[in-house]
């Protein structure tokens, strides 16, 4: 057999050759010092490449740049997010849970499920539109996403209570109010 090409030796190292060809190469290597040296060189290339690298010294400095670009720092915003209604929303849900109400545990009725699904879709739209690259001011984005998360917490509490009181119109109205507030957030990021 003539000397196998380096590509063939590399394939032999990886077990990528058909069995008959593999046998031929193995037999050749047993009798050829030059090709055994090629095996050592290719193997050292493979093993050196796979060695762990030292830590990246610029990691922290680069994070500062990244944080700046994604608006991850502490950002003061002058947008007057009317947080007191959100507190009221959460408080109403908490109050409802301590009322003596029949434990129906019948799950959500279709109308309530539809209401919550619609709210979920708007919540996802807020995240999607607020997260658009450079279209949204980082300060506005941060404030909008924070407010959206607060509304999530309130709606989650309401959903838990609605499972026990599925037809409660006041609770359903609170969900509608939460959704309308999310729509206000959408307007802020789509101006």
């Amino acid at each position, binding site marked *: 057999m003539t000397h196998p090409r380096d590509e063939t030796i590399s394939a032999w190292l990886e077990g*990528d050759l058909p069995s008959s060809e593999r046998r031929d190469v193995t037999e050749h290597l047993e009798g050829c010092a030059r090709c055994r040296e090629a095996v050592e060189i290719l193997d*050292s290339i493979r093993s050196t490449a796979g060695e762990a690298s030292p830590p990246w010294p610029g*990691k922290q400095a680069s994070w500062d740049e990244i944080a700046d670009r994604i608006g991850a720092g502490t950002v003061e915003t002058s947008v007057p997010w009317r947080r007191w209604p959100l507190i009221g929303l959460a408080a109403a849900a908490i109050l409802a849970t301590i009322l003596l109400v029949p434990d129906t545990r019948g799950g959500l009725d279709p109308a309530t499920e539809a209401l919550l699904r619609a709210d979920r879709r708007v919540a996802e739209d807020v995240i999607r539109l607020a997260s658009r690259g450079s279209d949204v001011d980082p300060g506005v984005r941060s404030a909008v996403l924070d407010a959206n998360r607060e509304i999530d917490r309130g709606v989650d509490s309401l959903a838990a209570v609605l499972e026990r009181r599925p037809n409660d119109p006041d609770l359903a109205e609170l969900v509608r109010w939460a959704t309308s507030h999310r729509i206000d957030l959408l307007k802020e990021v789509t101006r």
Partner: protein
Amino acid sequence: MSQQAETDPDVDVAYSEADVRSAIARDPEAFRRLYVATADRIHRLARWMLGTADVDDAVQDVYVRAWDRLPDLRDPAAFSGWLRQVAVTVVLRRRQGVARRQEREAPMSAAAVAGSGVAPTPVGLRLDLERAVARLPAGARDVFVLYDVEGHRHHEIAGLLDISPHTSRSQLHRARALLKEILMESEAL
């Protein structure tokens, strides 16, 4: 929901699926933890694939793009592979941009383009290997980096680079043969 910590094999800092979920929900502190856990490996990938002095900028672009695209990630458990895909995409586009710019400014051979801009580093086989990798044709270089440096299987590389596993194997063996030739020429071995 799994709370088991995930660890990038090359770093000691762990991150959890909860961190990924929080980052998807736009928590920048959670995203910072993901960055700390994964940035060394992404930097290594970018350095080997780009072979230029713009690596730090490229890595920043990777994470900014990852932050923008995080809402698209449906399965937090897939974060590591997803991030690698983002990194490969960003790095390949950046390299295409560099090549187009260099062609406009001073047309060169492919080998010269691949070998330009490698920053000086300490001596040793690893350095010689990095410099040699920078001189490989793009396809061979990408497969070599993803297989021998990053440890991916051929079917994963096929998905990352949009090639067949057979092509991935061929490119790998071609890359190693070329590297041997380059290193022997420079008498590094």
